[in-house]
């Protein structure tokens, strides 16, 4: 079985689906000849030709809109928005069109498309290459929102997203494209090759959308995380010797609430972790659901570890990022009494 980093796994998912389905087309800024600024689409144009893999103008609104037209025609566009921070010019098309077309046409037209976009900080990208805008999409009826945290899941989820009959916004945690990140930015980066989830099967397989993964079983508390923060959370509990159950949500919408509920009822404590800003972040939804479903099982208030409610500051990146220190304080709080 090959060992892939997340970029190679995503690239392979494209190759598998483009070979299987002649209706899959891939476009976005720099994705054609060059293969994308993060190399996710490398080699696709050479293998599948210029009319199926091509560069788009710097026009996120135009990229999404033309993908809508292509999906209306009968194609399955898989588009790349180069950074999640750039997605806003396409937001009207995503919210008002992509998300609504099945509903407003009573399913006469549907929008099977994938909007891939790298998100998150920790790469010294400053305010415009670091954001985590997932909650702007989880709030929109009609969209599915998927965030992988390993190469294995990245390939399986992307294939599932391309095969899904509904539009999927697919956020790629770019801090962990090349290796899992424990939150200690001053330590050397570990490569994916040391991680078991870098073993990626060849060919077609899927990881189901709407299904979370219990990545570590435990009894002390439940940690809900996704993307980069799954690895930061795992490192934090190891450092503190806590027997935590860590759930990688993998899909935010539709959410796998059963897995969450079962775990929190077992542990009685819950910590929600994301890199996005706190106010109205997806964590707020998770906390609300946990208290609705598990209130009488809770032994402590549900805590949140998040980014601050500020823009992502360049030089202060590691004071912004919800790293080991923020994790430590929150774990102490949620485990107290």
């Amino acid at each position: 079985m090959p060992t892939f980093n997340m970029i190679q796994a995503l690239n392979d998912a494209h190759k598998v689906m483009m070979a299987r389905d002649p209706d899959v087309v891939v476009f976005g800024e720099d994705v054609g000849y060059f293969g994308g600024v993060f190399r996710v689409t490398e080699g696709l144009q050479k293998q599948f030709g210029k009319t199926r893999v091509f560069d788009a103008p710097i026009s996120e609104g135009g990229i999404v809109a033309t993908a809508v037209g292509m999906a209306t025609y009968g194609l399955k566009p898989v588009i790349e928005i180069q950074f999640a921070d750039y997605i806003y010019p396409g937001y009207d098309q995503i919210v008002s069109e992509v998300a609504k077309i099945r509903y407003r046409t009573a399913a006469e037209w549907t929008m099977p498309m994938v909007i891939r976009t790298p998100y998150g900080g920790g790469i010294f990208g400053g305010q415009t290459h670091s954001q985590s805008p997932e909650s702007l999409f989880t709030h929109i009826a009609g969209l599915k929102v998927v965030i992988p945290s390993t190469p294995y899941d990245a390939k399986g989820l992307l294939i599932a997203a391309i095969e899904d009959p509904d539009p999927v916004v697919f956020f790629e945690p770019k801090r962990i494209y090349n290796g899992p990140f424990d939150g200690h930015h001053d330590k050397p980066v570990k490569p994916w090759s040391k991680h078991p989830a870098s073993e990626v099967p060849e060919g077609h397989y899927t990881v189901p959308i709407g299904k979370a993964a219990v990545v570590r079983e435990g009894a002390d508390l439940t940690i809900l995380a996704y993307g980069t923060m799954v690895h930061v959370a795992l490192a934090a509990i190891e450092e503190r010797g806590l027997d935590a159950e860590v759930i990688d949500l993998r899909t935010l919408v539709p959410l796998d609430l059963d897995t969450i509920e079962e775990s929190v009822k077992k542990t009685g404590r819950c910590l929600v972790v994301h890199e996005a800003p706190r106010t109205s972040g997806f964590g707020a939804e998770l906390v609300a659901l946990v208290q609705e479903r598990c209130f009488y099982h809770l032994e402590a208030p549900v805590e949140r570890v998040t980014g601050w409610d500020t823009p992502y500051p360049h030089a202060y990146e590691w004071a912004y990022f919800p790293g080991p220190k923020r994790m430590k304080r929150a774990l102490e709080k949620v485990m107290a009494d």
Partner: protein
Amino acid sequence: MSNRDPDLRRNAPHLELHVPEPAFRPGDTPDFSALTIPPAGSAPRPDTAVPAAETHPLTTALVRVLGDDNKAVGPWDPRLDPDTLRKILRDMVTVRIFDDRMYRAQRQGKTSFYMKCTGEEAIATATAAALSAEDMHFPTYRQQGLLIARGYPLTDMMCQIYSNKGDKLQGRQLPIMYSDKKHGFFSISGNLATQFPQAVGWAMGAAIKGDSRIAMGWVGDGATAEGDFHSAMTFAAVYNVPVVLATVNNQWAISSFSGIAGAERATFAQRAVGYGIAGLRVDGNDALAVYAAVKWAAERARSNRGPTLIEFFTYRAEGHSTSDDPSGYRPTNEAKAWPLGDPIERLKAHLVAIGEWDDDRHSKMTTECDEQVRAAQKESEKLGILPQQGKDHIETMFDDVYADVPWHLAEQRDQAIAEGRD
């Protein structure tokens, strides 16, 4: 407000903000004599294979076929047979009667909203005649003529307007936001201009697949100000997309005249110049000119010569919608003063002038169209009007958000059903 370093700026002129104003406001006497209207037949017709730049003089001209003598003149005369002309005329008359009856239905409280296209009927109906029935439209809310001309049942349109039991969109969409795949009519969006680049995307899909069908995108003068207009033009130009892009310049975007969208500086057709695509400016009240221009652009697109931006110059003779009262921002008699006339009267006069029509036949046809619309209205109202809707089958509200109903929507559906029983 700070005014730093006034010494440095003492001799500088005061900057002025220009806020465009229409020529006439309520109480003024509209006078369009300053408007340049080139005579019919004066615009040259280039071959459809010419480089885009050779069309650019036509972006400031006006393609017109029907002359003051009601004869068809010049190189753009499409030489249509009388049956086709009568079909376009009949479609226009049907649209106008349909609009009048549905406008009245809204006033009678049978629905919430309606939008007429009075004065603009030639644009959609003659376009429908010029394109193949298989070509795909991404319309705005003022191209109901496409559906009518393509034979979409009037009853189905009305059921959508009433959001009733016959509404295929299940009461989810604002009246007139039709959608029909079979008739090549994409779901209308209330977010303006979104459909313009979508049309380009559909045609890119057709080109990727080596299809022979083309797409036509529609936008109003006001919504050309949206970024989506620029996206559409950019993608159409970059990929030489087989698409016809139409801007219906009816000069009014609710209360804002076309100057607020930039019309004081250049025609809308001239926007083609900067993108390097073909452009045509067309008398939108002249059904023959509309037909000829669309036919030209379609032939160009079908032979991989690229996209064309067509500006249909017309006038919105009535309010924006049933929620609008134009007497608050323009003279009430402005529509009557509009010099390009009424598209129905003009085509009728042409058919009469060539000996293919007369007043009796026209009045007989009008009666038939009226009966057809009345019968459709009666039929659709049997299936209900808006005030009676929204009570039964509440559960359908939760369908089609996704292909399957996820747990959170299933929960909310149960709650909504329970509320419905309370």
